[in-house]
């Protein structure tokens, strides 16, 4: 049975940005884009794209990628297309800057309704910027979809959806009927590389771009439910005591003796 899928992806600051390049604008209460370090696709969203492509390989169907934000870098947002996704829909509007999770879920669910045809919505388990892990659950509530989170395996069979949810000490198998929403975690495995052919095809494909007005979003529902009142970079008060020896072998010995002296072993 072919499965029509929508994968929600977010462009984020590269989480590997070194701490030394991490800056915030305390007045705007926003993280400043680090100069020279391009944004990336949220890592878990790449896992979600991978999960969708595996379903498509097994069952057929389509993969539409949906992103909401501003100042998109096309190379970043088109990456799923170069991996094998079919379409890209961008909701891009300055009126949608700095939305909280609740407003983001509302706007994305309206975009999903406008796309119209879907059996499965896939998201990352959380976005590595604000680590909120809320938007997908909100979309599922707003669209009335069964919600299966932190998937490490996603499979569509005749009777519906079978998901392995990663647990702290193993996994659980859960199932639901379609349409449904799944959030995907890194336990699913590495996302595939883009192929040269994929990159060429992605380059030629133009995204569909919608504004807030085109989605008919109501201002009242975009009002924030949580507000950031302060943002700062924490300072560690710890100071490390470096243990040395005449050489590295000796340093290992000295470390053990030091821990014994301080009654830690």
């Amino acid at each position, binding site marked *: 049975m072919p499965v029509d899928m929508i994968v929600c992806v977010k462009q984020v600051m590269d989480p590997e940005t070194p701490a030394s390049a991490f800056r915030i604008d305390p007045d705007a209460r926003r993280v400043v884009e680090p100069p020279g370090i391009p944004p990336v696709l949220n890592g878990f969203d790449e896992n979600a794209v991978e999960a969708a492509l595996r379903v498509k390989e097994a069952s057929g169907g389509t993969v539409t990628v949906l992103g909401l934000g501003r100042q998109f870098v096309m190379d970043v947002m088109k990456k799923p297309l170069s991996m094998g996704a079919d379409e890209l829909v961008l909701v891009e509007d300055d009126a949608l800057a700095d939305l909280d999770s609740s407003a983001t879920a509302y706007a994305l669910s309206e975009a999903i309704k406008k796309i119209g045809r879907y059996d499965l919505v896939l998201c990352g388990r959380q976005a590595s910027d604000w680590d909120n892990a809320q938007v997908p659950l909100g979309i599922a509530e707003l669209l009335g979809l069964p919600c299966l989170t932190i998937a490490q395996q996603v499979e569509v069979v005749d009777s519906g959806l079978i998901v392995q949810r990663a647990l702290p000490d193993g996994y659980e198998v859960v199932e639901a009927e379609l349409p449904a929403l799944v959030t995907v975690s*890194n336990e699913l495995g590495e996302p595939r590389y883009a192929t040269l052919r994929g990159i060429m095809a992605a380059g030629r494909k133009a995204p569909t771009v919608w504004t807030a007005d085109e989605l008919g979003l109501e201002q009242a529902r975009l009002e*924030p439910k*949580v507000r*950031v009142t302060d943002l*700062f970079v*924490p300072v*560690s008060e710890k100071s490390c005591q470096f243990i040395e020896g005449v050489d590295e072998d000796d340093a290992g010995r000295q470390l053990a003796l030091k821990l*014994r002296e301080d009654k830690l072993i």
Partner: protein
Amino acid sequence: MVEILVLGELADGGLEPVTGELLAAARGLGGEVGVALPDPGMDGEPSEAFALGADIAYLLQDPLLAGPSIDARVAAFEHVCRQTTPRVVLVGRTGSGLDIGPRLAFRLGVGLAQDCTEVRLDPDTNRVVATRPVYGGNAVATVTFADVDPQVAMIRGGAYDQLTPDRSRTGEVVSVTPRLDPSVVKVRHVETVLRERAGVRLEDANVVIAGGRGLGGPEPFAKLEELAGLLGGAVGASRAACDAGWLDHSHQVGLTGKTVTPDLYITVGISGASQHMAGCSGAKHIVAINRDPDANIFKEATYGVVGDWKRILPTFIETVRELVS
């Protein structure tokens, strides 16, 4: 009406430790504290919840709560929230809590503060101010809620210590029957597959030896196992080591792994990314072995050795063996 409602979790007839931590956070806010407990599985009176700070226990009674269904829990908690109209709801970041908190907030049309390390009341507005790490811990935000209740906050594990049990405390028991319609359960649970674990649980260990990408492969983890054995500890890992398949993800410590709070956390070949530190910054003493003197881990460590673990670890283990025998 109750001021603060804790969404409780039960294990083996008693409270999950996280529920004790949530009760401590609730007491810190002041005001009457309620705890909602899915009743099937309760052994007798919720006296432990009272000893740990609850004033009222709402026992949710419904056949659908007998199973592990998250859908049923969301519906039952929604019912008790509408009935008790709390000002604040506190939820733990557990396997089910991570789903329940946000879904409940969306259903009630209110805001949620994720992963809070502190919640307090602003004395001027009498509303919650929550502190929470963001960007993997590279920054910290304080957030407040729009003017609707309840204000839902998810509390980071280990951020609050549960209170010393006061056995003289008693409370009111209220039974709640949400009468859930079976159609609320949209996700069916088929089976749970847990990994067999030998030795001390990572979350409970007093000593944790954690390895990262710098170990270069699965084999060196045998050395960490050996060291953990000598110290009665457990082995942890960074996500990079787990993603590489050197250890399964049940060993992962960090923002999206486990939170550990041992007395001693020894890292080998771990750079100390903020997302890793999110899971171990509650350790009393951190020891870092890393060949890069500028590695972030040294900013968080109590003791550090700069150098190649291949040279440092063998003599360290050998000396530890002599000292503990």
